[in-house]
């Protein structure tokens, strides 16, 4: 049994006002356990879904093919994989097969024979890949569909909301979806939405040369998953509101609020920021929340009891003078500011893309103002305020598609505790 706590929780402030619906923020830091020798890694069941529409021709498709070949080398007989390619039609290149050396060799030969043409039926390619994963669903493994595209879906299902809904439905049935967008022409909101709802990850692949890095790192991470379907469960009094402001989905479950964290890799650190809204109360009264962690395989249970690692926080009602004078936890303030800045940046990307430059600037300025109100002398927070101000200038004029994608990917990663390349962050110490 490790002494490392899987979950810690801190509040920005500990006092709340009696005649006000006070909002307080909580930074929950989750750390996944290391991979243990007693426990083998989980088997993976992957579908590689590759766009071979005309725009992929040349270097992009060649590198994608080579990378998938290289990724296959990491699999072995306990894993399964399949390969689907799509343009306007969808072809099953390799039917779901165990990852034996022979199957991998055959797959590479078949991949070799693919070249680019046609239009982009992303949805059907994805569904055919998911079908291959589903036909051999590994109950105790990681079942995931990896979708690579460089263009706008222009055949089949193309509505981002509907695609995200299907991703969530597949997720609920055990299959996650990861998306890779290559170059300047894909729709980042669509691919991000599929990955978020699908419990996987989204990667922005700047150019053909980085296709390899991203696919390799995603396949590497699926091989390192130690806890599946991790959920944060928050219990609070009925009139206390609980929601995540980091991008993880929040939903009620009986007397609790549940925040879905997806799968975690060995030693992964994940920051979740919660906003707690309190009702009026009498001075002196205390109220609290209990935050627990659970997962499908009971990895986070301590001594067989899921509740042993609960984090507990409480707040006290106090008069306005005491509230005004109370100390703040700067680490929590930074985490909160990071989330709101990420939201503002993503909204600014959307507005700039839509040609609404004034609104793009306004949303960045407004967020900067709010952060300045609690930044005090903290250099990190003041730095963030400065960044938002200068980005306001950039976003107030038309921006190149690649710059918008860079901005989206950077802020999306920050909000999800992932590094600049979209990789999970481990043991920051």
């Amino acid at each position, binding site marked *: 049994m490790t002494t490392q706590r899987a979950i810690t929780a801190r509040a920005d402030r500990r006092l709340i006002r009696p005649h006000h619906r006070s909002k307080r923020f909580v930074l929950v830091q989750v750390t996944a356990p290391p991979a243990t020798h007693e426990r083998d890694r989980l088997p993976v069941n992957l579908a590689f879904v590759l766009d071979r529409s005309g725009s992929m021709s040349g270097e992009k498709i060649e590198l994608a093919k080579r990378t998938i070949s290289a990724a296959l080398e990491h699999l072995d007989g306990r894993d399964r994989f399949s390969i689907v390619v799509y343009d306007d*039609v*969808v*072809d*099953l*290149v390799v039917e779901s097969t*165990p990852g034996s050396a022979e199957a991998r060799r*055959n797959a590479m*030969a*078949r991949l*070799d*024979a*693919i*070249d680019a043409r046609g239009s982009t*039926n992303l*949805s*059907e390619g994805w*569904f*055919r890949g*998911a*079908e291959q*994963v*589903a*036909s*051999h*669903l590994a109950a105790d493994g990681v*079942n995931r569909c990896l979708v690579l595209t460089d263009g706008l879906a222009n055949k*089949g*299902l*193309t*509505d981002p909301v*509907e695609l995200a809904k299907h991703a969530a*439905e*597949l997720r*609920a*049935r*055990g*299959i996650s979806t990861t998306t890779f967008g290559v170059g300047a022409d894909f729709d980042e909101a669509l691919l991000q939405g599929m990955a978020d709802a699908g419990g996987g990850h989204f990667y922005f692949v700047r150019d053909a040369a980085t296709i390899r890095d991203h696919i390799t790192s995603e396949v590497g991470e699926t091989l390192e998953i130690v806890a599946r*379907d991790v959920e944060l*469960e928050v*219990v*609070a*009094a*009925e*009139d206390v509101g609980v929601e995540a402001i980091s991008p993880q989905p929040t939903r009620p*479950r*009986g*007397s*609790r609020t*549940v925040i879905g964290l997806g799968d975690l890799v060995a030693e992964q650190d994940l920051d979740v920021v919660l906003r707690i809204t309190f009702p009026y109360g009498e001075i002196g009264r*205390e109220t*609290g929340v*209990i935050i*627990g962690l*659970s997962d*499908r395989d009971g990895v986070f249970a301590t001594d067989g*009891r*899921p*509740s042993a690692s*609960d984090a*507990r926080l409480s707040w006290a009602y106090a008069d306005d003078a005491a509230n005004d004078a109370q100390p703040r936890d700067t680490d929590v303030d930074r985490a909160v500011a990071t989330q709101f800045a990420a939201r503002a940046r993503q909204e600014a990307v959307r507005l700039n893309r839509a040609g609404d430059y004034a609104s793009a600037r306004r949303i960045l300025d407004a967020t900067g103002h709010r952060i300045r109100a609690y930044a005090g002398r903290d250099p990190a927070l003041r730095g963030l305020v400065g960044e938002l101000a200068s980005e306001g200038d950039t976003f107030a004029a038309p921006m190149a598609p690649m710059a918008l994608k860079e901005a989206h990917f950077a802020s999306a990663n920050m909000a999800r505790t992932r590094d600049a390349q979209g990789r999970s962050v481990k043991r920051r110490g």
Partner: protein
Amino acid sequence: MAPTDAPRYSLTELADLAGVTPRTVRYYMSQGLLPSQGTSGPGAKYDDAHLVRLRLVRKLQREHLPLAEIRQRLAGLDDTTIANLADQPTEVTDPQDTALDYIRRVLGPAQVNPNRLAAINERPAAAYGLAREPMPAEPLLGAPAPITLGVEPAPSRSFERSQWERIPLAPDIELHVRRPLPRPLAKQVDRLVSIARDLLEEDPS
């Protein structure tokens, strides 16, 4: 995942989460409205069933029901019923169908032709023709018509028409299934296929 059944709340926490004082909790226990814990000392722990029951008592009290009446109403109710009455039903969102059912419903039924797939799988890569030859008009999965995903919902008539599906389990073994099947049965068949394939893939030695 079901709510944690393990007792995890102290008396103070239980009272806070239900919006009452610890004294009220003790009073309810003495009145038989809440099951009392074996130990009642400061170390006593309470579980979600206590919390939900306590919230229901509060709710009924707000409706001006006398405690005697509340006790009577609660007598003999199980935890699920109590959770429902307290407007805190335990989540039942687990999908009833499998991923494969779901995908096939979206894509429309794709009758896999095992012979065709087998033939493709046996063809060497060079003869596979992905590179230069035009693709066959018929999709590889053997669906009778081009799939119109998203253009219109999967046509319902394809579900009314029953058809035999041949599911290859191993090179020499097939399972024949008449589709469509009721969902629970389809789920069982998927499990059967998965178990059978695992079994048949095992090294016989």
